[in-house]
């Protein structure tokens, strides 16, 4: 069995994917976990390159590494006091059952994969310019999922704004506030108290 450079790259990228992923689900420090999640995403992007999916690899780096990791980091920084030791006791819940279910899923998936005979080797040249072909097919053959996902993005955008928006009314500038106080003072004596 000879190892080609392709194989070496594959093993390295597999390690770059799985080792940070294992740390992501075990580390107690969530900032470290989020940064390692970015590492794992980079490893998956490399595996996409090995599978001749250049556009997906670029999208993976842009969307996952660039956007989602940063979004998760912001969420951690907005919700956690780093000096807070409240999570020091246990970062886990139901550790035994979780381990059991995950191990069972992995073993059954592994058994399923091992029980099949897959095509041994590919020796054909892959699709020459994947990005061009993918672009054409996204707008012809796969136009429906493409359009549906664009609508989904719009819905998610609106939903995220509605959820994250501050429910408090917009604060009135000082000079307008005085006018408001004068008007409300006519109706109720304590009208300006809630301003």
């Amino acid at each position, binding site marked *: 069995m000879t190892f080609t450079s392709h194989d070496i790259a594959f093993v390295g990228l597999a390690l770059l994917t799985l080792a940070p992923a294992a740390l992501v689900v075990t580390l107690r420090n969530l900032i470290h976990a989020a940064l390692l999640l970015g590492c794992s995403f980079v490893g998956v992007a490399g595996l996409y390159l090995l599978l001749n999916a250049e556009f997906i690899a670029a999208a993976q780096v842009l969307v996952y590494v660039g956007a989602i990791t940063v979004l998760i980091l912001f969420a951690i920084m*907005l919700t*956690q006091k780093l000096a807070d030791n409240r999570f020091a006791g246990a970062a886990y819940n*139901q550790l035994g059952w979780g381990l059991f279910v995950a191990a069972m899923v992995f073993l059954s998936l592994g058994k399923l994969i091992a029980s099949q005979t*897959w095509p041994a080797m590919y020796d054909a040249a892959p699709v020459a310019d994947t990005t061009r072909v993918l672009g054409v097919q996204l707008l012809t053959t796969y136009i429906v999922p493409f359009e549906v996902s664009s609508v*989904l993005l719009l819905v998610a955008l609106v939903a995220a704004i509605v959820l994250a928006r501050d429910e408090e009314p917009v604060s009135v500038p000082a000079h307008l506030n005085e006018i408001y106080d004068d008007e409300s003072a006519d109706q109720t004596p304590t009208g300006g108290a809630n301003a």
Partner: protein
Amino acid sequence: MSGHLAPYLIISAGLFSLGLFGALTRRNAVAVLMGIELMLNAANLNLIAFNRFLGPGGASTVNGMPVDGSFTPLLAGHAFAVVVITIAAAEAAVGLAIILTIYKNARTINVDEINWMRW
């Protein structure tokens, strides 16, 4: 090794199991979301790998028949990987907005303490 489909599927299965473990056991809601992102990545890796090895145009032979050179390959796995990436981005944005709203109201994102909807 990298010329076979099975190693990619094993890596994908490992990534999925790790994500499942994280989503099931972590107590912090953001960490649960990170586990879900790992699972979505595993699904994407499977889509791309299957498209490369089993998709039309991916292998030189399909059922022992040589693929015609003029045949236009379908990149179904790639197209749906794009959709999955879109959904993952939308899910992360909405999920984190929900987590921030919960944090504003309850001052905690520990999933054990967020039990208002339990009866």
